[in-house]
């Protein structure tokens, strides 16, 4: 029997099927019906306690192929039913085993629908998840601690690579990526489009990147409150106008902040595989995968920022560009993983922009 305590004092008891111990974290939910392995390894969920709305989890075990990063980042997983007997030819181990190895606390047999209702009504809360059956005294004590819980500000340090590395070195288009917790899906999508990628840690100075002759810089997805990342924003400001910049997720938010806009915390975030996003230019709608808790304040964008995409559920900003500065950004995850990759063509569009830019530069060079 394990316990989940929410900031507002609600207590859930469930069966523990992961690691032993206890963690504090932000309690969030994801509405994807498949893809728990990708979500578990998505750095955007760093330090969070994740509730899956889909009730049967663990069905196909855990395999070697579907990780979105080399590690897991969340601290707790909450499900209605944990599958006892997984079945898939690729599966290497059960979800339960995997969670134990990765030190993730997991609870099952929880009324997740009620829990999610609470989160949508009250907004994202902090919580404490433990594999222990806590008594009321302990619960009260924890509850006190929870009121002052804050996500660590240096969370990027934990999800970013420690040192620079190359990916798809045989690629032709030379790009740099700021790794704020990048998903493998993005690296693969770019590699597939002939990009030679150099991945830089989150705290790399802009200068270092500008010293190399990159065709473009990508700013990756990642966890946390973008407004806290002042150092990163400052580096981005230095890059702006000097090199084409592309942002996804956190990268998009940081680009907005660097452009003078503001971000705010969504009541309960966008986490799922069914978020409709409309392209404001051609009114085409695509289904997107999302995994973020913050959004760009549409009311307070600067006049240079041209909104390109909007979420049809709540009208939040899903993408913008500043063409004069070569800034392009989207809030959602075009690679899916898990979820639809209907918007993957955005990578094509972006790579085409870079190619055009390269051609233009080459022409200028030739003229000289």
């Amino acid at each position, binding site marked *: 029997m394990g316990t989940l305590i929410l900031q507002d004092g609600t207590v859930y008891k469930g069966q523990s099927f992961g690691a032993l111990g206890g963690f504090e974290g932000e309690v969030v939910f994801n*509405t*994807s*019906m*498949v*893809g728990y*392995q*990708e979500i578990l390894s998505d750095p955007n969920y760093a330090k969070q306690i994740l509730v899956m*709305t*889909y*009730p*049967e989890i663990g*069905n*196909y075990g855990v*395999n070697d*192929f*579907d990780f979105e990063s080399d590690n897991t980042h969340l601290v707790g997983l909450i499900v*209605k*039913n944990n*599958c*006892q*007997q*997984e*079945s*898939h*030819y*690729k599966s290497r181990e059960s979800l339960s085993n995997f969670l134990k190895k990765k030190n993730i606390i997991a609870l099952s*047999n929880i*009324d*997740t*629908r*009620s829990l*999610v*209702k609470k989160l*949508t009504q009250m907004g994202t809360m902090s919580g404490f998840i433990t594999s222990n059956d806590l008594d009321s005294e302990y619960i009260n004590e924890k509850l006190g601690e929870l009121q002052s819980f804050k996500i660590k500000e240096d969370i990027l340090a934990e999800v970013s690579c420690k040192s620079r590395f190359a990916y798809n070195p045989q690629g032709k288009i030379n790009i740099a990526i700021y790794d704020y917790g990048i998903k493998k899906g993005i690296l693969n999508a770019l590699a597939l489009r002939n990009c030679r990628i150099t991945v830089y840690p989150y705290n790399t100075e802009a200068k270092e990147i500008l010293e190399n002759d990159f065709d473009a810089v990508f700013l990756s997805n990642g966890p946390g409150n973008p407004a806290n990342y002042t150092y990163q924003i400052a580096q981005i400001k230095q890059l702006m106008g000097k090199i084409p910049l592309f942002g996804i997720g956190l990268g998009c938010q940081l680009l907005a902040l660097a452009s003078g806009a503001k971000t705010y915390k969504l009541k309960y975030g966008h986490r*799922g*595989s*069914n*978020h*409709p996003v*409309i392209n404001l230019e051609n*009114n*085409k*709608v*695509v*289904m997107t995968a999302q995994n973020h808790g913050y959004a760009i304040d549409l009311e307070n964008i600067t006049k240079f920022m041209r909104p390109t995409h909007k979420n*049809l*559920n709540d009208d939040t900003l899903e993408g913008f560009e500043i063409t004069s500065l070569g800034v392009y950004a989207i809030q959602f995850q075009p690679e*899916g*993983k*898990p*979820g*639809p*990759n*209907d918007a993957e063509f955005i990578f094509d569009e972006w790579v085409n922009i870079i190619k055009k830019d390269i051609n233009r530069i080459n022409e200028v060079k030739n003229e000289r």
Partner: protein
Amino acid sequence: MKDRTLKKILVIGSGPIVIGQAAEFDYAGVQACRALKEENIEIVLVNSNPATIMTDEEIANKVYIEPLNLESLTEIIKKERPQGLIASLGGQTALNLACELFEAGVLDKYKVKLLGTNIDSIKKAEDREMFKNLMQEIGEPVPESEIVSSYNEASEFAKRIGFPIIIRPAFTLGGAGGGIARNERDYEEIVHQGLSQSPINQVLVEKSIAGYKEIEFEVIRDSNDTCITICSMENIDPIGIHTGDSFVVAPSQTLTANEAGMLRASAIRIIKALKIEGGCNVQFALDTVTNQYYIIEVNPRVSRSSALASKATGYPIAKITTKIAIGYNLNEIKNPITGKTAAFEPTIDYIVTKIPKWPFDKFSTGDRILGTKMKATGEIMAIGRTFVSSFKKAITSLEDRYTGLLWRGFQEMSNEELLTELYIQDDRRIFRLAQALYNGNEINKLCAITKIDKWFISKIKEIVDLERELSTTKQLDKKLYQKAKEYGFLDDEVMHLTQNTIETLKNFNVQPGFRLVDTCANEFSASTPYFYSAYAEADEVEDYKIKSQESYKKPKENILVLGSGPIRIGQGIEFDYCSVHASQELIKRGYESVMVNSNPETLSTDFDIATRLYFEPMNIEYIMNIIRKENPKGVLVQFGGQTAINLAEKLDQEGIKILGTSLESINAVEDRKVFEKLLKELNISQPKGCAVTSTPQALNAVKELGYPVLVRPSYVIGGRGMQVVYNDEELLTYITEAFKFSNEHPVLIDQYLEGQEVELDAISDGRDILIPGICEHIERAGVHSGDSMSIYPSQNISRKNEKILVKYATKIARKLNIKGLMNIQFIIKDDKVYVIEVNPRASRTVPIMSKVTGIPMVKIALSAILGKSIRRAGFGVGLYKKSNLVSVKMPIFSWQKLNRIDPALAPEMKSTGEVLGIDTSYKKALYKAFLAGGHKFSKAKQRVLVSLNDHNKKPALPVIKKLFKQGFFIMATWGTHKFLEKNGIPSKMIEKFMIDKLQKRMKNGRLSFIINTPTTGKNSQNAGFQIRTIAQMYGIPSFTSIDTANAFLVAHKVFDKNTELTYDTITNYRKKNFLELFK
């Protein structure tokens, strides 16, 4: 944006209910009409099926109950001049008709725009060759296959690819005429069958990928190229069994996100390449050990699967498809459930299980093997928070004699035998699997035998293990009981397994919660009145009620409407019609209606038909849970067919009020002795009869009654197991079998009166009765009323007897204090009226009678039930005035889907649906009925095979004479030939045993139809049976009643005379009557 030029739209329905095309298209059609009404578009609706809700005059502006063929539709288009045509919601029937109308140039000529998916796209999806080419173009894999139009070509393919091979005929519904061949002999037979059934003589022969996982996606696309998938569905049964015959679960359970994403992306590529506008269904085969997948099939229209996906997710696919058809883009449409955009993909937080309902309980000789040809008549769906609970609930929803997975007759089998039988893919496979698990066989072994994914088998094992735990536990505690409830075990099952009383269980105080279906897993606050029960879960009904009742000026009482469960032979769409009407009328009268049903195909389970909908098994425990939650004023049982009626007694035992006719009266007509006494008291005659519980008793009884007699088990649905027997030998065979089938109830033996059968429906308030009309059957008594052709108004009943019928009906209604609907069947023989059956509930004919007379029967019945006098309805009392319109109802059978079923008409019901021919004269209405039933008329000299049993020879003589006079060439079997010769009718003799020769003639289309009156007994070896079943196979009509044959000849004469048919709305047909009254 909406196309504003569209003011009037033609909607084509799907025609009669047949296997492969059932109530789902009524549901889709009604949704479409409602969506068009919202847009103030005038709707012209054509459908030959009178039992549907879509043919109600409230649904469409103009309702044509007319045959669905090129001629009728051309005339209707000419007359109505609609700007648009919607064909993607009326199943394969409507889609094929749209193609015909296009080919014939009708659409062009009258400038009718085909809305939604265009002809080109339809053809690309439906034509095997074009589809294959398109798939190759966009790089989507299809299994190696070839289109052939002769067996020779097919044979070449087989030599190259090897067996097994799948055969799929082009343009047929539900895969009719197809199958899997494992050897050359089967191959030849199936290919021939497929070629003959395909309207374009084409079949696809395809490398079999049996054993792959079968996955379906429901996809929607708009003209702006926005695509969404509504739902993925995984068949528990692997490829090889038609998806309509498979256990299906939604969403998919065993796919990784990568696999699901790969198939989803493929589905979207396909719908984009096909340029579908609206709903579409894509079926995939996925290998179990690699990423290899194949496209199996694409349906460029709303289908049975879309109805399932709509009910499974709450997303109204048909409605959205309609809005797209008239020009909207997905992002311009609202999802009615969340109030957010319809351009999103539903996500669900529960598991849905669908199980087909097969007719094999009625067809004991039927071939139960499942393959690529669909055999189920209906289906049930269950929702649970876990797979196990959803699956267990689904099994309960089947309304079988047994509720659990075990104890279905397999426990006595040796394990070896069981494992051998487990290779058989039939309707009982899951139950064999459960027993095999109970016997302790290893999961991997069972997996290898059944090719069912280990995941599903493990889950079924969890259920079986819990069953064992329950049966071996010494002391049931709350924890174990709670677990059993979470798994979906019924209290009855727990009591039986643990030897506990209901009091013990009640003391544990374990209650279910009701959860909401909201399309979005609670991400947004939705207020859909669509619920399912779950244990260990909080309840959402209370919150919903508080929110929704805020707008009420004063509190409303609620009333529970019991639906009719899955569609089966004998209990069809007509009861959905009644339930829906009852629900809507309750709301109109200021009540809240609470609907319970388990059938995903129907309109009654649409979320906006009732005030609140509970998608639950039609089982007393589940219904009591709802009652405890809702605390209704009472329960309506008379609209949900036998399913609802069967629950009445149990509800009464729980102290729940049955509204309308009392349980006592319901029982009075079901209990033979009480009923006999009642009729005696009322001085009404009935055929003599008695109930017997042993063979000697039976023989004694017959001595008194004299042959022929009608034998049947007591308590029946659709006359199951009923038969006419003519001698001791037949009687003994029947009795022995009947007691094997059920020894709980006695066998009933009645005098068989071969007279005129008459039927009426009445509405009673206990004092007065209103009889909308009297119907007369074309076939003489002995054919189940559901299988006979019937005429309204009656043509051959004397005024005197009409009065007697009314008098009897009135007497019975008063005596039984009938409140609501009632149906009585009579026989008139030698000018004497006998009552043969009283049904104190809505009958099959209620929708028809409501439409042909214009009397809203369910509405009036409901006011009677609520204590109002029926006089206030404004239709008077007694027998309502006759219409001048004449309607002929014709039953429709699904023989081509069911192998080895004797198509002979009998007291046992076999038809799956019906059509109605309406016109101003009997002959024209009759002709239309045959046309609507798909009969072909031809001027060419035609050959007819006649084979009569001894009993029928003499009565058949006038009909055969007529046949000869009308210019048919008669071929006759030996006995019949001799008989005809004696009576001066020339015929060519044919030996019965020359079946092969006959088969050839049928194959080559050299036989127009067959008149074959069956010899009795269920001997499947006899020649008549063989002739009939071969005829079925080649789609050659066989008339097994002289009266049907006679009616066909009458209709043929109308055709021979080049009679021009006109088509009109049901409203106008009735008005014509009105005008003529004033003349």
